[in-house]
């Protein structure tokens, strides 16, 4: 699948409602909290395993950006590019990761939005992320996860869209996943 495959459904607007039991909802919440923990603990390989084969990680450059095909994005990564990032972060000669970027994030306001055209669950959450590398930086925004149900009763990420409050700011390097 090409990186800029226009058939990839990047929309996070639900086309149908979703009814989740209290227990299922707690499962979704736990999935997002676990994801946050893996990133904060730099357990990147385990994080990579949370995705579907064709899943996409997207951080738009613009507020309200419709797609990653016509405009630049802060991140637009398929499995290959996510893996490359992890390989670089774990390379011993990653000069810009000495010292490494440390993060701590709080995820909240988790709300199921509904289903997309393929039946993936669309979940919105809000995060506060403190990053430290040589200096402290605050990142914040809303994340949209599109999740596919697995046979084992869990979830996999089809799309993660992160809308930073300052996506249109001047940025220092963004080295780790948000």
């Amino acid at each position, binding site marked *: 699948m*090409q*990186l*800029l495959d226009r058939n990839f459904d990047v929309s996070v607007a639900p086309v149908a409602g979703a009814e989740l039991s209290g227990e299922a909802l707690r499962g979704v919440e736990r999935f997002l909290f676990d994801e946050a923990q893996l990133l904060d603990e730099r357990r990147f390989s385990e994080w990579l395993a949370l995705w579907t084969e064709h899943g996409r990680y997207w*951080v738009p*450059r*613009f507020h309200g950006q419709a797609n*990653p*095909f*016509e*405009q*630049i*994005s*802060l*991140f*637009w990564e398929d499995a*290959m*590019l996510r*893996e*490359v*990032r992890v*390989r*670089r972060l774990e*390379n011993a*000669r*990653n*000069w*810009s*990761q*000495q010292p490494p970027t440390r993060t701590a994030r709080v995820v909240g306001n988790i709300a199921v939005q509904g289903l997309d055209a393929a039946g993936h669950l669309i979940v919105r959450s809000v995060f506060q992320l403190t990053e430290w590398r040589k200096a402290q930086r605050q990142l914040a925004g809303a994340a949209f996860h599109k999740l596919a149900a697995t046979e084992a009763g869990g979830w996999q990420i089809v799309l993660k869209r992160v809308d930073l409050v300052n996506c249109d*700011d*001047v*940025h*220092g*390097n*963004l*080295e780790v996943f948000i």
Partner: protein
Amino acid sequence: MTLSTETLAGLVRPDSVHKSVYTDPRIFELEMQRIYGQAWIYVGHESQVPATGDYHTTRIGDQDVLMVRAADGQVHVLYNRCPHKGAQVVAEGDGCAGKFFRCPYHAWTFKLDGTHLAAPMKKGFEGTCYDPAHPDFSMRRLARVESYRGFVFASQAADGPDLKAFLGGVATSIDNLCDRSPVGEVEVTGGVFRVLQESNWKVFYENLHDTMHARVTHESSVVAAREEAKEIGEMPFELLIMDGNGEPYEFWEKLELRAYPNGHGYMEGIFDPAAATRDPVSRAHFEALSQVHGEERARAILGMNRHNTVIYGSGSPHTVFQQFRVIRPLAVNRTMVEIQVFRLKGAPEQVFDRALTYANVINSPSSNVMPDDVEVYRRCQEGNGTRGGEWVSLHRYLGTDKALDEGWVSTNGTSELPMRNQFAAWRDYMLAEGSAAQAGAKNEEKNHAAA
């Protein structure tokens, strides 16, 4: 304490520069006057202000300026300052002023070329020197503005060479970027990245033609890309452009570096996009150009494979990947880079897709390649702040570069010719007496003394 001409002259040797050129805030201030107050500096591309009243804000050295399209189609470059109280007339970014500018503070209005239109409650000015026709009551234009194939440059100096003469040998890079469009035109589209570097602006210019750093600084991204390619069994475009930095020294030695007056230059291409395992793009692009120009001309246009071009003071256009990395100094130790992506008008869509992917992978703040550059620049900034030594070495292949009719060419691609050439220009700028910004300041002093 001011810096004497002798002191400034002593900072640049044929084979080295004094570290204070990167760290001394007084030198940075002088650069803003003598380089950025003098040279032609890239403001933006005409396509960023397509309609009447459209404006784009940016910085020329330490000056907030805006580029605006007037009703007659002309593009003007103005200081973003209301002549009344000095407020910035428009907010930072892109927008449309409509038919005229209106200051948000006291509603003074200005035509799109900056000239005074009106101020409310005129009777309050009766009996004063208020004169709508006097330039003191208009938004000031930069001294000179010229466009080269849609690329708008401005100079704060009233006198000096015209833009074409200033660009010299690197105008061909802008030509080639435009010629890659079947209709010979490009437009900024898809947005502009803005990335912060915590280092002096000159370090980035030097690095653009520093072939000796690539395989050392970028080892982490080269190895990551190669490991990934091995695992998936192919080398797609996204990995190819990270892999290129890992070429052995012998590869870099064979490249050609060109140096031109005013600090400009370019280097030969380091990878052929057509080498990617899935690249239908180059073929489609060639066919589109052939239809217009014939195969021979199409081959000549696409065969000009240049990597980074340096337009000293403005930044680095890249012809093959259709972008302009515009370098904006913010402080002695802070630099902002604006990365513009261009669409080649009339070219197949995949050609833009490739440029977009290149920008996302290489130039985004999230790039896997750039952080290691930015880190070593910062380390230079910090290291040069110590008492561990005074000079920065530019010795490599000194004395072997060949003079051309215009400029120089390296005999070895790892030559530090580009750095020596940049500092030769830097020295000329910094030692030049009576640059425009200084002359302006002196005249103001005189006027005040007379008053």
